[in-house]
């Protein structure tokens, strides 16, 4: 692991280390593809630096802003990727030598991940932001509403509709992918 720099880049270095994994997991959740998730995660952090004057801090953290940006980038990935395309292509990657089709667990998991990404794609961008912040990242509805510029009441009713839509999208797949269909998002109702 490279040593932490002492100059002006240290702050961004620390933020990256702190939030990298959650941003990556969120990006992966949205696209269901490892390579694309890396690109989206990288673009989110590059946007964090480029738009640093406009970042909104919620409850002392920039993570909610990062997650919303990640969602936006994954929805406009063509446009966002274009800005950083050269840079992203220049970053080195470990070649994945294992053939995903050879590993049955892996291919099944990939199929589930992509189903889940497709279900999330049925939500509107605003609803996806809410689901991300409230269900996946366990922020309060009030905090999420503040970040998204909604009233808590409006956020709550949006959440309710988003859950229903997500449930419908996932149930639609239940016939083709029996009981193991990923439903953690529907477990543990929050107040």
């Amino acid at each position, binding site marked *: 692991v490279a040593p932490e720099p002492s100059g002006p880049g240290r702050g961004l270095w620390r933020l990256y280390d702190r939030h990298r994994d959650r941003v990556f997991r969120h990006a992966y959740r949205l696209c269901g593809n490892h390579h694309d998730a890396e690109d989206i995660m990288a673009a989110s952090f*590059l946007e964090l630096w480029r738009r640093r004057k406009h970042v909104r801090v919620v409850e002392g953290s920039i993570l909610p802003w990062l997650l919303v940006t990640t969602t936006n980038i994954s929805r406009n990935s063509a446009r966002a990727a274009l800005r950083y395309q050269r*840079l992203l292509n220049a970053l080195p990657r470990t070649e994945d030598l294992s053939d995903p089709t050879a590993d049955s667990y892996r291919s099944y998991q990939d199929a589930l*991940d992509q189903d889940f990404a497709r279900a999330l794609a049925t939500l509107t961008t605003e609803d996806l932001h809410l689901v991300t912040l409230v269900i996946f990242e366990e922020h309060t509805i009030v905090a999420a509403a503040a970040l998204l510029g909604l009233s808590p009441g409006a956020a709550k009713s949006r959440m309710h509709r988003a859950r229903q839509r997500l449930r419908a999208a996932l149930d639609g797949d239940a016939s083709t992918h029996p009981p193991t269909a990923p439903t953690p998002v529907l477990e543990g109702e929050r107040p």
Partner: protein
Amino acid sequence: MNQFHVDDLFSDALRAELVSQVTKEAPAAKRRRTRAWLGTGALAGAGLLGVGAAAAGLFVIPGGEKVTPLASPVTRTYTGTATVELGNPPEGTTGIQMEF
């Protein structure tokens, strides 16, 4: 399960790139600030110069009145009725100005 983790090689390179963007930006921001200050200074200087010049009467508003003193002022002190000798009017005189 490696699809749930960022590739270390990629991650390290990205982190280095982020830090290099910050360090690249730092001197540029300083230069921009210096330029902004210089610009503001130049503007303020030009403004002051304009005000000074206007006060000194270097500019005449088109169609405005232009006063050119032709003779040196004559200052006398009197009480009661008096006659002030102004001498011969210089060439081109069109009026006199009096102050009490």
